[in-house]
């Protein structure tokens, strides 16, 4: 059996995993919203720029992106990134690229009449987006965003490869120290990851109910975006 000290180490690793996931998710969500809106913008330059961002950051593998950010950015620009900064930058930009496509799909699924009505009552483009389109689109975005968040949480295990003491790194560390039977360590770690992922699923479901309140869009268009 794992000793309580070892369990403590794993739990502190799990906390790092949660933090990396949360920071990356903040960056990723912001980028996704900006990316989703600007990929539908009237400006061709902006659309083109978003397209390039999405294709590049989705196309390259998260682990290669992470190594590139961590090892080459310092060499290229002389800026030093801590493993945590490199991790959230790589995972966040990666998530943002996938999320942009989700956000775009959700915004496109909102009936044109909503925007037209907002124009008719003379709302500025920003308020149209802020008060009319996005509140409805977010309901559609939530389920696929929940899946994406789980993917990010899983991908956060990669930061163990750049010396960040997350759950995976702690497990590898305990295993190489031969501190406990490797089967026990890894079973505990897999279960912890599973529990984090389960909490994300439940959390997103709560948010869905919260944002879906008073909106018809959740029921009528639910099938439009996975």
């Amino acid at each position: 059996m794992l000793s309580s000290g070892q369990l403590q180490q794993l739990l502190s690793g799990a906390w790092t995993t949660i933090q990396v996931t949360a920071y990356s998710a903040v960056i990723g969500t912001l980028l996704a919203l900006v990316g989703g809106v600007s990929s539908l913008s009237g400006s061709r330059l902006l659309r083109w720029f978003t397209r390039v961002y999405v294709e590049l950051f989705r196309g390259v593998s998260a682990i290669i992106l992470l190594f590139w950010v961590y090892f080459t950015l310092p060499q290229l620009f002389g800026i030093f990134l801590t493993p945590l900064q490199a991790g959230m930058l790589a995972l966040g930009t990666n998530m943002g690229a996938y999320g942009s496509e989700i956000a775009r799909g959700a915004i496109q699924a909102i009936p044109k009449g909503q925007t037209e009505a907002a124009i008719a009552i003379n709302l500025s483009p920003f308020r149209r987006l802020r008060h009319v389109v996005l509140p409805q689109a977010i309901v559609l975005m939530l389920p696929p965003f929940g899946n994406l968040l789980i993917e990010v949480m899983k991908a956060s295990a990669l930061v163990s490869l750049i010396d960040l003491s997350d759950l995976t790194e702690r497990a590898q560390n305990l295993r190489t120290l031969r501190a406990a039977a490797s089967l026990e360590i890894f079973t505990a770690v897999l279960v912890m990851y599973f529990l984090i992922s389960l909490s994300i699923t439940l959390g997103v479901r709560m948010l869905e109910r919260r944002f879906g309140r008073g909106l018809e869009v959740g029921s009528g268009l639910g099938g439009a975006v996975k």
Partner: protein
Amino acid sequence: MTAGAVAQASPATWDWDIAQRMFPELLRGLSVTLQATLVGITVAMVLGLGLAMARRSSLPVVRWPVIGFIEFVRSTPLLVQLFFLFFVLPDLGVRLSGFTAGVLGLGLHYATYTSEAYRSGIDNVENGQWEAAVACNLSTRTTWGSVVLPQAIPTVIPALGNYLVAMLKDAPLLSTIAVLELLAVAQGLNSQLFRPLEAFSLAALLFLAVSIPAAILVRYLEKRYGYSRD
């Protein structure tokens, strides 16, 4: 390479000579990445179909463990699963080579995804087809093999294509379990020549040169088969 070594690095410019020296080796690494992906997706396609069929079993003792397995594997990181196969299994007396553990890990992880795709494909086969098979007194094997699967699988092809592209992006994880694929080669070159700029940038570019066309091809397939992931 440690954080300390990175801190000392000064801004560098691209060196074409070094890039040229690295290129052939990286290309060999890329071919290993592609091989692992192809074997991995084959495992995922076969195993995923098995999981999808087992999930529909009328026996709860088959159905529930399968559902539990799918949910568990899908919710935990592939990297940890690879470590499990490569580092933990030997302690239990099962020794796998890096490549075998790698394709098995990729295959198992993605089988849980492909099984969901097969499931929706199978669910889309009309009920009448099953009923007709019963009416014709077809055996379970004939019902699956000649009635249900031939109708279900074509609708699943685009989704499988998407998972192929996704798996390609995860294949560099095999560098962590001693498989000399693209990223491992890049890391090796970096520690020999201390040139992360060329090593990792070239690796990323080579990767994009495969993954972007692959993604475009899959999108084309989706259009052609009139199937949309959204």
